[in-house]
């Protein structure tokens, strides 16, 4: 099914910003400027945002309001970015987070 609501029975047609391209783990995806990164990912079918530090367990959106911090990813090279409240911008680089960094990026020198 299409994860995007085109028309809502109460809210009517859903207004969105400009369609932009961003990268997700080296794949190009589209989303609307200004919507939360997590919304664009969800629309593209991405559920797993990160793998935890200790158990390597998959995590995704849980609270969707920036409180639980489970949906964090590496965004433009910075780890622990809450994707549910961070607006999507053109050309953003979004990566799955492993522990506290992007995969194969161990050590602080590669963080910035």
């Amino acid at each position, binding site marked *: 099914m299409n994860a995007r609501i085109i028309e809502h029975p109460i809210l009517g047609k859903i207004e969105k910003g400009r369609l932009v391209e961003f990268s997700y783990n080296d794949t190009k995806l589209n989303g609307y400027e200004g919507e939360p990164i997590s919304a664009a990912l969800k629309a593209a079918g991405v559920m797993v945002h990160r793998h935890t530090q200790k158990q390597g367990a998959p995590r995704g959106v849980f609270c969707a309001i920036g409180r639980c*911090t489970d949906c964090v990813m590496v965004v433009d090279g910075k780890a*622990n970015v809450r994707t549910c409240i961070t607006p999507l911008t053109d050309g953003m680089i979004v990566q799955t987070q492993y522990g506290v960094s992007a995969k194969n990026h161990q050590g602080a020198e590669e963080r910035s």
Partner: protein
Amino acid sequence: MRKINDRSRDLGAFVPADDDQMIICRCEEITKGEIRQAVHDGMFTLTEVRRYLRTGMGLCQGQTCGKLVKGIIVRELGTAPAELEPAFSRVPMRPIEMKVFANEQEVQGDE
């Protein structure tokens, strides 16, 4: 004396349970079994468990697991929920980058 105050109170032996492996603190990946064991180790308050195990010390600062941890401690101690206060909340209410925290600004004009 409240039940949380006498630290020599006999809690009986620690009995492992089926769901001990279940994650309670999502941020720090602390399990129910670890929390139960901590109570048997003498950690009778949310603050002590927090300091002992890091429950509620992760990015979300206990906003998700606070009530769950409390429930587990209450059951393990056999005490009343009202006896246990949440662990302390602290500034900042949401994580803030060091460079932002460092950047104190004056509000200009009358606006």
